């Protein structure tokens, strides 16, 4: 009990600090100077209707590259973490009983979900959504397959090739920015196009497609790895 009361004291202490932050916080009336710049110039500088996307892909493109790297890194670590012990174990996963309804439903749903995901990342610069969201949606389709189907036709090799190629392409597009435009990750390698249409905002949609593919394959890969380790039991 002593331990718990000490912990409660700790949390109360932290809460007191946090309360200070909360009490000091005054709701904003207007944008800060950086955000104001984005609001006023984002349309002309980046050409993406979704300003969040403009910030994510262009202004703070390096962060996004970092994010992609984190997912990639996590997937890679999980890959070798789970692999090292099971590499000598090539036994096929035991086929458990699968629900027929679930399987059929999945077969119908998967293409639709993939389509939705694709829509979300292709339109990431126009509407809410983007590469990460779209990628996550696509991954959910594969998760459904993994759960619902006995032997899902997911080729690990294809996944990792898509994953790597989209990553490399992201970097190459970034580098092209130095050569052809204003700097690393600049989106104006190609024209900005017409504001508000699919083909606008320069390379933003391309990058978001790549991110979508990459995130989708990475998340699928992680889940697949976990599934495999579970099957070994």
């Amino acid at each position, binding site marked *: 009990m002593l331990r718990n009361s000490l912990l409660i004291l700790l949390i109360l202490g932290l809460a007191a600090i946090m309360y200070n932050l*909360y009490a000091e916080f005054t709701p904003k009336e207007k944008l800060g100077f950086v955000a104001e710049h984005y609001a006023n110039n984002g349309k002309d500088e980046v050409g993406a209707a979704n300003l969040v996307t403009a910030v994510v892909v262009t202004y703070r493109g390096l962060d996004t590259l*970092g994010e992609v790297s984190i997912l990639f890194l*996590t997937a890679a670590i999980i890959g070798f973490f789970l692999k090292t012990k099971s590499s000598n174990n090539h036994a096929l996963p035991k086929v458990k009983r699968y629900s027929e309804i679930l399987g059929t439903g999945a077969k119908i749903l998967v293409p639709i979900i993939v389509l939705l995901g694709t829509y979300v990342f292709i339109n990431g610069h126009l509407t809410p959504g983007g590469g990460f969201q779209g990628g996550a949606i696509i991954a959910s389709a594969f998760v459904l397959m993994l759960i619902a189907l006995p032997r899902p036709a997911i080729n690990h090799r294809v996944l990792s090739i898509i994953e790597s190629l989209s990553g490399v392409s992201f970097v190459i597009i970034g580098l092209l920015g130095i050569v052809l435009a204003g700097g690393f990750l600049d989106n104006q390698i190609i024209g900005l196009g017409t504001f508000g249409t699919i083909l606008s905002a320069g390379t933003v949609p391309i990058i978001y497609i790549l991110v979508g593919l990459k995130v989708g394959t990475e998340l699928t890969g992680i889940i697949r790895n976990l599934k495999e380790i579970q099957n070994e039991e």
Partner: protein
Amino acid sequence: MQNIGIEQISLAVGFILLLLGIWGMISQKNILKIIVSFTIFETGINVILVAIGYIRNKTAPILDSPELQTDTAEKIVDPLPQALVLTSIVIGLGVTALLLVYALKMYKQKKTLLINDYKDTKW
């Protein structure tokens, strides 16, 4: 104090989630519960981030209608924290996935999920 707005409510919610998460992490013995607490902690931070970018009576920073495209700065909420939240969520996802794999591996080693049982390195 004038009327409490949605940003203050969500800020408070964010802080509460964050504290709940920390509480869980330091009091729960089960590794899975610790990881769940960690995600609650992460979520709390994300909510705080969003709350910080919110400005009352402004709309989302998506310029899909012509009237939003003039004097934009007067009409939208801050897009930057939303971008940060996106990054933060993805990082949180990566960390959580890795933690879960760790938990799995730890369980395979000792067949227990109590954090007290993993004290092999100490002093």
